[in-house]
């Protein structure tokens, strides 16, 4: 059982990676910050019932990923109500690698994008990715395969040294 005083430590430990994950999922700074806050807020609401930091982390990432997918599904609605905070394009304008990775990720379906981020940024195995997304391992594999196929086209020059199908 987690201790109430430990939440600050958990937040400090997990914030940056949650935010970075949210950025890869959304490509929008404001939305990423909101998602990371949302994930931690919901974790805080459940704090007394979470066994330990590992359980808290799993809950936070599950919330983050599912919230991001929900947001994308509702992109039109979101765009309407967030006109005061227009989408941040900086990640698109200044890709750190010289490759417009964010633009390529944005071209993926929400669940495909989530599979890519969970599998290759968080480096989660298929089983944990499936658990976080609430789907079967087979779905994760097929979504990941489809995503990689799409990215292979979108990032052709950077990914020219293909290593085969997803693990």
């Amino acid at each position, binding site marked *: 059982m987690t201790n109430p005083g430990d939440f600050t430590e958990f937040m400090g430990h997990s914030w940056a990676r949650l935010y970075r994950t949210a950025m890869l999922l959304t490509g929008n700074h404001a939305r990423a910050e909101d998602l990371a806050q949302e994930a931690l*807020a919901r974790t805080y609401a459940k704090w007394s019932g979470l066994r330990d930091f590992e359980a808290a982390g799993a809950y936070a990432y599950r919330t983050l990923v599912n919230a991001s997918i929900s947001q994308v599904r509702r992109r039109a609605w979101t765009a309407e109500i967030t*006109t005061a905070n227009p989408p941040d394009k900086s990640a698109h304008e200044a890709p750190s690698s010289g490759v417009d990775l964010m633009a390529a990720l944005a071209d993926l379906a929400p669940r495909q994008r989530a599979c890519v981020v969970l599998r290759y940024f968080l480096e989660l195995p298929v089983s944990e990715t499936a658990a976080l997304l609430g789907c079967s391992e087979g779905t994760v594999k097929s979504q990941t395969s489809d995503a990689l196929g799409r990215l292979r086209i979108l990032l052709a020059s950077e990914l020219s040294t293909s290593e085969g199908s997803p693990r």
Partner: protein
Amino acid sequence: MTETLQRLLTDEAEALDVPLPDEVLIRARGRGYRTRRRITSGIVSVAVAASCAVVATAALPGLLADRVPQDTPAGGWNAEAAQSAYAQDGAFSVGSDIYFGPSAAFVVHSNDKIKSFYYTSAGVVVRTGEKAYLDDAGPSNYLLARPDGSTQRLQIALSDVAPDSDPIWPYLAYVTSGTTSAWVLHIFDVEQNEEAARVPFNGAFTWGGWAAPPVALDGDHAYVGLDDGRLEINWRSRSPGALDASGASTFPVVSGGRVLLERDLPQPGDTWRTEITVRDVTTGEVLFQQETADEFAQLSPDGRFLSVSEFVMIDGPATDGRVIDLLDGSEQPFAIQEGRGWTPSGRLMYVTDTGVRTCDADTGACRNYPHQLSGGRIKVGGTNYES
């Protein structure tokens, strides 16, 4: 390919400027979810604050409210229509505009953001502050917006507390820390802009994180959420009464003589179910009990209906909810987009993807108030915590 992709993702992520987390906001939002689980005022609520400061009468810096011609019929403000609209369909805001039904709008001119509404018989009390979410450190300011088109800044300024009101009375209830007692319950008459009653009481309060215990107001009775139970106080007779242990360390939600209790039921895999119970607040008789998915409930102002839905993700998809008639247990479905609450008359009120809808909980007949969503986030009355 996957190793290259891993490198690209890592490089992209590591190059980001990560903002600092706002722990106060995160805890506040989290507490809002927790609070919504455990209560959610039916409609009006009063609150008290530990640091209750008197606001200078003459000076109203920062917050002025005016009628605006927007959507107002030719000839100006229709007080009769606004009164009817308020009673039937409550109040909601779109950005900084406050609406009574479709035809009346106030606009809040200030840097303050609208936090919440508290329905009273004198009009809607609008809580504002620097942040749009409820439980920041404060201060929160309170403004009475009357259906006749007038407004009045209330002479209270509270910090992070959880007030409540009863829509059929002109009072706002709240708690502050006391000098000769641990706490003081205040009943503030918003119509007269003066305090109507003050009741000192004692009890431990450590569970909620507010500056003072949260309170529910139901007629002559206030209910305070202490560590050891829900303390009943008859504020007219100034007498603290019984402590009900079933309400220990929970946000009190009492409407129409009924108390709503919600309890988390942890499940395998760090998931939850919720046990929703409605009791007669006097006798303790269980009137309704249901184990549901991870949901939260709200009592209607008269205590007859219960609205239940899952948590609604910010900017997320519509969520299926239902209204339960506590008389016979019958249910009606509804799809909630964002906030939901009740109107003073007991109509269900919620945000759809095109505006605000209020529905007769008995018949299911609804009225829609379309609004341009680009005007800002919509907040509805009849619910305390929106975080």
